[in-house]
């Protein structure tokens, strides 16, 4: 019995890591792209919420969940583009504008999202990867949302692309040393604007996950700060896509701890366990902090760490 409960717990955590971790993955990959170019976008939380809303609205209006995802990506792209363009103006601080963008994104989403709180939009169907397993618990855990494989693909693509494509190298060059990039006639501003836009599109898709997969509806309290946590995740991941994947999964797993414990009948401190990801972030950041060292891997032009 105890062994059975333990298996249930483990399965719950694995399934939960994917379920809870997917939006973290998309948002942190987006932030990773943006920060590699030397900009910080703190507005990802706003983009996430706006993405969630537009995905839901798009899916409802066209009755196609995938169109909803496209809408979210597009809205994220546009908001990211706005951030990129505004921060290219002289004397604009990317951190300050990021906070403004966060509020703007949330506000727009709430304003335009009012009519979509009640109706039911089509959801993204899950991929039943565990259909061949007898155990119903595994079947549930392995009924993976289709955005997760997409996220894995993106992780691999970024990991390879940062080193082995012209675009990736240009991105890292611009983020690492602006003077060198200019001396090499690399279009610094263009690269940053595009990177911020691409990062916004990723965050938008992360938002689509929230409204179209899990929890799977549009409401004003949908996000629990995934967009803000992503900034910490990227630092924790040391600006590596594979690190982002690991961090997102770790976060998902700790986030799923409460529900998984509840599933085996242990519900004391449910809300305390829900706070586990945040406690974990703090613990990891404190443990990995070195007051007399620079962060290894930080892009040189990043205003956060400079």
């Amino acid at each position: 019995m105890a062994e059975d409960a333990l298996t249930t717990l483990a399965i719950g955590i694995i399934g939960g890591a994917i379920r809870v971790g997917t939006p973290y993955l998309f948002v942190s990959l987006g932030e990773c792209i943006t920060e590699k170019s030397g900009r910080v976008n703190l507005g990802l939380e706003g983009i996430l919420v706006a993405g969630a809303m537009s995905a839901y609205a798009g899916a409802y209006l066209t009755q196609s969940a995938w169109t909803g995802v496209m809408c979210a990506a597009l809205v994220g792209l546009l908001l990211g583009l706005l951030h990129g363009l505004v921060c290219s103006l002289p004397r604009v601080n990317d951190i300050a504008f990021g906070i403004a963008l966060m509020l703007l994104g949330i506000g727009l989403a709430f304003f335009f999202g009012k009519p979509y709180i009640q109706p039911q939009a089509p959801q993204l169907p899950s991929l039943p990867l565990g259909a061949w397993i007898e155990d119903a618990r595994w079947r549930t855990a392995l009924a993976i949302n289709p955005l997760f494989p997409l996220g894995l693909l993106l992780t691999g693509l970024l990991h390879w692309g940062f080193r082995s494509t012209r675009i990736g190298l240009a991105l890292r060059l611009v983020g690492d040393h602006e003077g060198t990039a200019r001396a090499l006639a690399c279009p610094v501003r263009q690269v940053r604007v595009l990177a911020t836009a691409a990062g916004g599109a990723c965050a938008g898709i992360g938002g689509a996950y929230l409204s179209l997969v899990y929890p799977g509806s549009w409401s004003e309290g949908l996000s629990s700060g995934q967009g803000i946590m992503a900034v910490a995740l990227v630092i924790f991941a040391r600006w590596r896509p594979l690190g982002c994947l690991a961090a997102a999964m770790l976060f998902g797993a700790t986030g799923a701890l409460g529900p998984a414990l509840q599933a085996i009948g242990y519900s004391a401190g449910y809300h305390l366990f829900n706070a586990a990801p945040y406690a974990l972030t703090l613990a990891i950041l404190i443990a990995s902090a070195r007051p007399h060292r620079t962060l290894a891997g930080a892009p040189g032009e990043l205003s956060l760490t400079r």
Partner: protein
Amino acid sequence: MALEVIGAGKSFGAFRALDDVSLRVAPGTVHALLGENGAGKSTLVKGLIGYQPLDQGQLLLDQREVEIPDPRAAQRLGIGMVYQHFTVAPGLTVAENLLLARGRLPLRIRWRQVQTELADFMARAPFRVPLEAPVASLGAGEKQKLEILKQLYLRNRLLILDEPTSVLTVQEAGEVLGLLRGMAHAGDISVLLITHKFSEVLDYADAVTVLRRGRRVAGAPVEQVSAQRLAQWIMGESASPAVTRPLDRAPRPAGGDAPRLVVDRLTVHDDRGLARVRALSLAVRSGELVGLAGIAGNGQKELIEALCGQRVAVGGTIRVDGMPFHAARTQMHRHRVFALPEEPLHKGCVGPLSVADNLALRNFDRPPIRRAGGRVSFAAIRAQARRRIAAFDVRPPDPLRPIATLSGGNVQRAVLARELSEPVNVLIVANPTFGLDFRAVADIHARLIEARNAGAAVLVASDDLDELLTLADRLLVIRGGRIVHETDTGACDRAELGRHMADGH
């Protein structure tokens, strides 16, 4: 490749930075460009490289008129620049930096193929840098070599070098310049060399052009000039006596033999947690100027930062006048410990603050500037600033100007004014004349000797061995974070010093 500049001019608002300057770099030669800071060398060169196009003037490459509106155009024409400030991305590897320099890259980079190509190139290059190393892990000398390698890799045929040897040891500088001259004389490249060092002009250049206040004042083949001649051209007729006066070195005061500054088995880590100073011990006596020589990147930077309180030592002790010293503000004040950190604008000043505020950073929390109730008297700050600006000849003499708008030499003078206006017991100095012109160098050297003569224990770390040989009573050589050699300056042999700096035999 031959380069000819005819009647070059450039204005910034009402300021005429460059006025009717002409020069000719003959094919297969090294041409030196000399002048004080602000003489217009950088403006001219930025025009040649397309970074900041000129307002007037013609450019001829191999007798053909060309236009260079942007850096890409310069690259297409085969003109390459090695900047004084490194233009390599520190977070990327050597291979990635070389590859990026190439400009047009394929969308997908085939690393295996690129690595073979780069290894081939490196095997033929005059010097080597590890390809897979992140640039941040290279020493200054290696970075400078990488800059030059980058130009060779691009097959540029006219290289413009902006003080390329300022961070190299004498041997490295000789090696690099010798190789460049060899390549030039073989007809592979032509070189335009900006430098402050007369010895480099006389030993390695074929011809020289001197600029002063934006105008060309002289030009000649090197065989026809002497160091004295060059100094006259650079300074003009009004060369101040301070520049040519030899350093006035008092005999070391007797009885001052008790060490003032004692470093005992000090270990210091760098930003990445690597030990850069390893159980290093040294002592400096009162009235003694000790030079710390070494190839950049051997722990001097971390040692000086630990002594100045900019970095925490992980092991060992520092004692000043016998008392433990942690570079706390009260200790610095009590023991009269002062410092001239390298890159004074970044490590010794707050750029956007005024000159007056920067001059008060040591004593704003003491009377007379501090008044009752913790208030600060701005009148006292300004009065102090006016006195110190006059005493140290900081230009322009405006106490309210942000210090970041001053030229390098004047920032260094302002920091000197702050650190040397009160009696000094211990003075810690790092690369005090890096990138400064002739006049500023002479001035600063005189001030350091003055502090020594007045009885201070002075420790000077410098990448410029000539500077240390001029200044120091005693020389220490640092390598790999340890002192590996010690000698009196009078009795030392440059070649031997160089060997100790390089690998010690």
